[in-house]
């Protein structure tokens, strides 16, 4: 099944109201989209527009909130930390997901089914349960601390540090990387590898020169997805991190709940949104992101 593309249909199909196969398209069906569109406009687009608007007007009109971000001594540090964390989490997740997704393309359908379930289980498992699990593992005297103590390295308490947040985030994000990687790798013709080896290339070289470049679009879309999701992730840093080493989502939340500073929070949110859209724009030239959702919900 092909992924739904976001590109517009050819103009001819639109103007004469006929489908590509010449089937008459019912114009009436167009009204079906109205309720959901209205809901999203009122409860999604308007709130987003409103918070962006407030970042320029609340408390006073102008770029005050943005200049404050630059010189409040916290925002820039936190923003940098968040970007670096998201890049590291993205890279680690991809490195771990790559062999798994690759193996999925080479096993029997039966094994592949099992491997898919193993990926989808955490994808759909309660986010709170998974974060609570990491809380226990990373706490003082938790399994990770104990394991390191056993080999003579004491006091590895990840809880309350950016490192702890990143470790948990990598595990939480794995399904988001495996799914686009697999859907990309599925389309690579394995015979190309055979061809390369039969022409005398060693296996690793055939992989590095033939397979890896072909899988790059999938790698890029997986990386971008993880990067974007990590940027806006609130629960994991809020539970496993600390205010001293906070990430942007925590900063946004504190500004809103403790200070009711919607202008300042809006400015941070707008920056986050801008980075997200920029990343999406860059990657959309190479890959299709919507296929991940599709994979996750169609269970294929």
């Amino acid at each position, binding site marked *: 099944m092909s992924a739904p593309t976001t590109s517009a249909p050819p103009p001819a199909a*639109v103007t004469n109201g006929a*489908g590509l196969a010449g089937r008459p398209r019912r*114009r009436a069906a167009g009204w079906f*989209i109205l309720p*959901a569109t209205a809901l999203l406009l009122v409860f999604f687009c308007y709130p987003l527009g409103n918070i962006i608007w*407030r970042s320029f007007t609340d408390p006073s009109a102008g770029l005050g909130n943005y200049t404050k971000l630059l010189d409040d001594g916290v925002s820039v540090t936190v923003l940098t930390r968040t970007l670096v964390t998201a890049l590291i989490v993205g890279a680690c997740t991809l490195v771990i997901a790559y062999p798994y997704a690759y193996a999925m393309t080479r096993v029997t359908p039966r094994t592949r089914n099992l491997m898919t379930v193993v990926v989808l289980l955490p994808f759909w498992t309660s986010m709170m349960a998974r974060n609570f699990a990491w*809380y226990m593992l990373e706490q003082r005297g*938790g399994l990770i601390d104990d394991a390191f103590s056993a080999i003579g390295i004491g006091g590895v308490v990840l809880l309350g540090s950016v490192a702890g947040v990143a470790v948990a985030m990598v595990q939480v994000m794995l399904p988001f990387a495996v799914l686009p990687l697999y859907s990309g790798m599925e389309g690579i013709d394995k015979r190309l590898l055979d061809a390369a080896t039969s022409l005398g290339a060693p296996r690793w070289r055939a992989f590095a020169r033939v397979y890896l470049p072909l899988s790059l679009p999938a790698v890029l879309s997986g990386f971008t997805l993880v990067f974007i999701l990590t940027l806006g992730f609130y629960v994991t840093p809020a539970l496993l991190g600390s205010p001293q080493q906070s990430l942007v989502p925590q900063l946004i939340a504190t500004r809103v*709940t403790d200070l009711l500073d919607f202008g300042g929070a809006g400015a941070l949110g707008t920056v986050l949104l801008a980075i997200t859209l920029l990343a999406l724009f860059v990657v959309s030239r190479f890959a299709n992101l919507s296929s991940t959702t*599709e994979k996750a919900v169609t269970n294929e």
Partner: protein
Amino acid sequence: MSESALKPGVRAGRDGGLGWGLKIVVGLIGLLLIAPTAVVIPMSFSSGTTFQFPPEGWSLRWYESFFTSERWMRSLLTSVQIGLLVAVTATVLGVAVAFGLNRAGFRGRGAIRSLMLAPLIVPSIVVAVAIYGVFLKWQLNGTALGYVVAHTVMALPFVVTVMSTSLAGYDRTLDTAAATLGATAWTTFFRITVPLVAPGVLSGFVFAFVMSLDEVVIALFLQTPDIQTLPVQMYNSITLEIDPTIAAASSLMVVATSIVLLMPQFVRRKRSTS
């Protein structure tokens, strides 16, 4: 054609393709995907009052606490109620959108499709704060309507995607065939269309429900002392109080979602073997 041409190659690659090294790596990654979450299950049988793991003794006290605590039970009930309302609303709206996008030709279909997926792309903290901001003004905070509307926004992308996929595989000539055989539009709809799209609708419904049941960021902002969802209660039981009841709640959630997810696998297998 390419499928059958590839098959021998895949078979041959089964032994040569996955070396032992890769097999071990894959096994470890599988373990990394599953094992960390599984620790909540032994934790839930702890007899201690802290989050100490592994537990020093065993008991069922946290399950008892979960099922007898008024606060936990109320949050579970709230979550299930909101989840069902969200599932119904999102399914109705999402199925309609998918039909509209699939069957009608109009300008801007690509834009509508992007709009439907947008809630997944925009950073969740930004969505939460934005919705919180306007809900304060509209006095929707801590109301069932507020939760349902916000969660429906977040569930729509799943329903629309799963339904679009389902409709993309729908062979429209079946409708024509029914019509040529003398079926009325209604008969065609109920006897042909409904059975064909039912699995897609059902999975859309389940995904919307699970999504709402699990959503925590928006729910954290919309919470009031009177109305809290289960994930929010879980969150508070880690941050505000150290209450191991969360281990029992987590285990129940993990088991429940696993059953829902594994069910189609078993049904499919049974169907294919019988």
